């Protein structure tokens, strides 16, 4: 359990949060720029010293302003990955990696040099100087360097935001591998919901220095009372279980949790039994009162209307649906809603036009 409470005033900005976060998996600090994500992360690292603050990781106290405790950043077992490349230009890649590694006791080195190098795929870069690396390579080295201090908590400040789409796609798979390979809780700052959807298990929604909500990603994303449901990228993340692969049509079937419902996706074969993350955006879900027939849409699922809410655009409505326990969002026009006479509790058919497999 990571318990954090900070009050910090910087110029015209005030951060005031109190959080209880799981000490495992990936927790995203999500919010628009200026919402206090990075400040919160810096407080956790000890790079900011808020006069009012408390931080405890699994019982170990790093800050308690009431008792006058403040552990300096270099004495905290944290790894920190900065937004832009932060490699030491005067050191080779290998010496950058060893910088933190050398500074912890040999007995505390739970992550070995080779392990980090392999995990981030940077073997071929070791002898180079940072100036000769691409942006994606620099970030991978930065992540490996942070891991090599065998941290109890890995803090990542928008590690992909300085990269173009191609570099992002290059680094993202490495980030996805981290939680599975290492038992280190990760706090991941991002303002890009697609990164959060791919990586996070838990999420804190920040706005103007306040935590609007904190909880499982699967429960926060479908909430209509949060700004997450607004906007073009609103949608849910579903953990599906691979049950079947139709080699003929190259369609993968994934079962929704605790239900008989399945979603089919055109994809390469994946062995049954694997858990995969699916993302369904609200704008890709349409509704029908009766079971649609003669439709080219692959995924037609019986659902129930749970809740309706106004969208940011007055022409639209947001509808929260229930698929035998799995929440789903639909963004439809207010006109359609009135034509269908939607009401909470109503049985309905959800037509999912597109599903993204996040791996």
């Amino acid at each position, binding site marked *: 359990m990571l318990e954090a409470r900070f009050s910090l005033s910087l110029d015209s900005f005030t951060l005031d949060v109190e959080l209880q976060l799981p000490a495992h998996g990936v927790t995203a600090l999500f919010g628009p720029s200026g919402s206090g994500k990075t400040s919160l992360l810096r407080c956790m*690292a*000890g*790079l900011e010293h808020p006069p009012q603050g408390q931080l405890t990781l699994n019982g170990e106290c790093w800050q308690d302003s009431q008792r006058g405790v403040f552990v*300096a*950043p*270099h*004495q905290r077992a*944290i*790894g*920190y990955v*900065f937004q832009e490349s*932060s490699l*030491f*230009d*005067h050191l080779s890649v290998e010496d950058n990696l060893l*910088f*933190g590694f050398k*500074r*912890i006791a040999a007995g505390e080195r739970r992550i070995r040099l080779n392990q980090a190098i392999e995990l981030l795929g940077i073997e071929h870069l070791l002898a180079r100087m940072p100036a000769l690396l691409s942006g994606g390579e620099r970030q991978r080295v930065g992540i490996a*360097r*942070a891991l090599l*201090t065998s941290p109890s908590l890995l803090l990542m400040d928008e590690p992909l935001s300085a990269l173009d789409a191609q570099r992002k796609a290059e680094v993202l798979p490495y980030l996805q591998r981290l939680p599975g390979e290492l038992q280190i809780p990760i706090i991941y700052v991002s303002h890009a919901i697609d990164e959060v959807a791919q990586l996070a298990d838990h999420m804190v929604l920040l706005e103007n220095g306040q935590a609007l909500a904190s909880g499982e990603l699967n429960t926060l994303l479908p909430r209509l009372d949060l700004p997450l449901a607004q906007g073009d990228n609103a949608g849910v993340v579903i953990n599906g279980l691979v049950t079947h692969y139709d080699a003929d049509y190259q369609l993968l079937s994934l079962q929704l949790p605790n239900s008989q419902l399945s979603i089919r996706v055109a994809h390469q074969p994946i062995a049954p039994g694997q858990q995969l993350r699916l993302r369904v955006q609200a704008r890709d879900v349409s509704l029908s009162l009766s079971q649609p027939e003669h439709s080219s849409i692959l995924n037609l699922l019986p659902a129930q209307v749970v809740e309706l809410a106004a969208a940011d655009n007055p022409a639209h409505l947001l509808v929260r649906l229930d698929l035998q326990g799995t929440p789903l969002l639909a963004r439809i026009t207010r006109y359609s809603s009135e034509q269908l006479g939607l009401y909470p509790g109503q049985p309905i058919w959800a037509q999912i036009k597109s599903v993204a497999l996040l791996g």
Partner: protein
Amino acid sequence: MPLTSADFAAIWLTLQLASITTALLLLLGTPLAWWLARTRSWLKAPIGALVALPLVLPPTVIGFYLLVAMGPQGPVGALTQSLGLGTLPFTFTGLVIGSLFYSLPFVVQPIQNAFEAIGTRPLEVAATLRAGPLDRFFHVALPLARPGLVTASVLGFAHTIGEFGVVLMIGGNIPDQTRVVSVQIFNHVEAMEYAQAHWLAAGMLVFSFAILLTLQRRGRVGARAIS
């Protein structure tokens, strides 16, 4: 050989003075530059201005106050006398002290600029990689400030070589003690030995040009420091 043994003695003394002064200034000026680059104290502006004073003051003014301070009636003089060291004017030690003041901004400012250019990020990175404050200074700040340190050394050395006014005020003209090249050139001119003066003066000219050329080639001439 056109140079006399007195000329060589003056050259040797000048090189000694410049080397010792540069070494001491790097030792003392680097922490001062670090403080100036990092502090948010209100003292930053006045201390920074004090460090820059020798850039604009006539060397005779610096020399005059040093002479007064280090003389028998001055506070520094009283101290050195009570320690049994005598007084410092007209000694090589006194000259080193004068040079420290005279060349201070030429060493401190390039280093300060280099530290400021590094910014706080690499130091924060080092802190998250378990490096304590001293460790960060020696293994991150200093290596990254290397170009500034090189510029500071070269400028400090070259500027001390060219010292004249301060030397004349507190050092006088004592062979092997305080008679540096610039003073020796003055002696030659006073004695109408223009040929001798030419050799030394041209030597200084070529030396200074070579130094500045080297700095220009490195592209790191401390423009602000020379201003």
